[in-house]
């Protein structure tokens, strides 16, 4: 098929949500090319009462010809039907959309523009405050001991083009670059504080060839079929819709390339002595995360998720971080940070009674006790899975 003729945008109307959405790249030479979409917008307007949502979160590009054509219809509708309101939903990731569409609210008061932002993800703010950064670094230090030997079995090799999605503070990308020297790393995250930290580290240590970018993993600006390896660590478990993220990871991966994910199953954290108390607390962690629409039990489900997302040659393995991986105090520090966030913030926000929180905290304390005990053993299991995108 002639690539010049391929449509690269899509418009849809969802009657249940009263939402008209435009996605992709809309750069027509004349408005005639938009006729079916304009007709759909007019039809949508005719059908709605109250508010019509215009969703442009997945709109990557739109030239002025198209902008004027769609705007014209919306402005005319405002004038013909004062009862109707328009809410345009833009994305904080696509830099121009809010500025461009924001002008419309200056023309017609019935048009408002709302910028969609990462704050819409339930629960994640617990894990993205600046105070959590040191512990994220320690976690990566602990997991890296294992992952550096695991990664080559999942597609990591020198010279590849890779993306680290939900890169957090970027330390994994830095470690990968030093160890494996990929030709290019794009590291994406939706937390500006984490990215600022990552950029500072990169500048301080003169780290090149890592491009840190602000983005939403569920709708990235990155183009299709770009990367030999796409990594997404400890993140599917944090999203309320992991399938949506996987779809995006699949999209940006090259055919023949691999997507590599790591996730936990927190209820399988263990320790000796005081095993029962530890076990009880981590079972409760799983319930607590579920309350905030996150699945900290996702690890062993990775295989199913990858198969259902369309990957082939699925490879799954697991490893156990223990108090014997380096300094036991590092492991203890990680558990202490979990206690602060899970028992100190999340359980409080859920409205748990003091007696529950006391017992909940005790399990973490017992896990720390096991980690630091000269004869003790403390473990934190992690599942690694990768799949190949079909050629």
């Amino acid at each position: 098929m002639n690539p010049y003729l391929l449509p690269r945008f899509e418009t849809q109307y969802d009657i249940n949500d009263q939402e008209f959405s435009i996605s992709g790249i809309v750069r027509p030479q004349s408005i005639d090319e938009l006729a079916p979409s304009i007709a759909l917008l007019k039809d949508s307007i005719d059908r709605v009462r109250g508010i019509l949502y215009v969703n442009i979160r997945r709109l990557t590009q739109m030239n002025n010809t198209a902008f004027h054509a769609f705007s014209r219809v919306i402005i005319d509708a405002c004038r013909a039907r004062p009862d109707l309101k328009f809410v345009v939903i833009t994305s904080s990731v696509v830099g121009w959309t809010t500025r461009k569409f924001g002008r419309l609210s200056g023309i017609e008061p019935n048009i408002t523009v709302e910028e969609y932002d990462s704050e819409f993800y339930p629960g994640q703010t617990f894990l993205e405050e600046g105070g959590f950064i040191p512990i994220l670094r320690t976690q990566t230090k602990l997991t890296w001991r294992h992952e550096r030997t695991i990664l080559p079995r999942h597609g990591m090799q020198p010279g590849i083009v890779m993306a680290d999605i939900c890169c957090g503070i970027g330390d994994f990308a830095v470690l990968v670059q030093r160890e494996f020297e990929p030709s290019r790393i794009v590291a994406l995250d939706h937390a500006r504080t984490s990215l600022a930290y990552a950029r500072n580290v990169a500048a301080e240590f003169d780290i090149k060839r890592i491009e840190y970018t602000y983005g939403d993993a569920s709708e990235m600006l990155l183009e299709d079929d770009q990367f030999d390896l796409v990594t997404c660590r400890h993140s599917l478990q944090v999203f309320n819709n992991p399938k949506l993220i996987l779809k995006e990871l699949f999209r940006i991966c090259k055919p023949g390339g691999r997507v590599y994910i790591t996730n936990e199953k927190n209820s399988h954290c263990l320790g000796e002595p005081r095993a029962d108390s530890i076990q009880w607390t981590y079972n409760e962690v799983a319930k607590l995360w579920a309350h905030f629409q996150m699945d900290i039990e996702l690890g062993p489900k990775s295989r199913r998720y990858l198969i259902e997302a369309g990957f082939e040659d699925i490879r799954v393995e697991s490893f156990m971080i223990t108090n014997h991986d380096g300094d036991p105090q590092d492991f203890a520090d990680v558990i202490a940070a979990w206690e602060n966030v899970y028992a100190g913030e999340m359980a409080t926000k859920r409205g748990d009674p003091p007696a529950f929180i006391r017992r909940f905290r005790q399990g973490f304390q017992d896990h720390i006790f096991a980690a630091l005990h000269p004869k003790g053993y403390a473990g934190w299991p992690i599942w690694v899975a990768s799949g190949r995108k079909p050629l």
Partner: protein
Amino acid sequence: MGPVHHDGAGEPTFEPMIQIDMEIKAFVSAWRHCDYVSTYMARMISQNRSDSVRHSNLFSSAFNELLEVAFRMRHADGELACRVSRHGATDRIELTFPCVPEERQFYEEAVSQVAGSEARERYLNSVSGDLAPSREVVLLELAIDYNATFRLDEAGADTITLVVDLPLEGLPN
């Protein structure tokens, strides 16, 4: 940031990054060329920006509009030169293309109006009006939404260079 170099006229020195020259005939043979050229050049010059993906998207968005303006002139002959250079947080696009005297006058007027105090109002009026966006409106939008500044340079007989400075790196997200 390194030391700022200025040329003889007192303007900071813009370091060249990439240039594409095309026969006008080849350029106007397919509308999609505007998109291809703007996307390709945006990717090339954004690699070392603080957020390469965001910068590339913004740059492509602005540059495509300028290329579409050049495309719609429909000159039969001559060359189109697209040059991008950089000074600090500002990327400079220089578009050199054939231009008859009437068109030169249009660009001179458009560039002076873009810099005027009523630019924003003129732009909003155009968006709420019935007419399709004119070349002048495209320039107005770049000034308002991308903080672009414009200048016209002589580039020889029947040729002009439109110089557009885009401070995208400093744009708030």
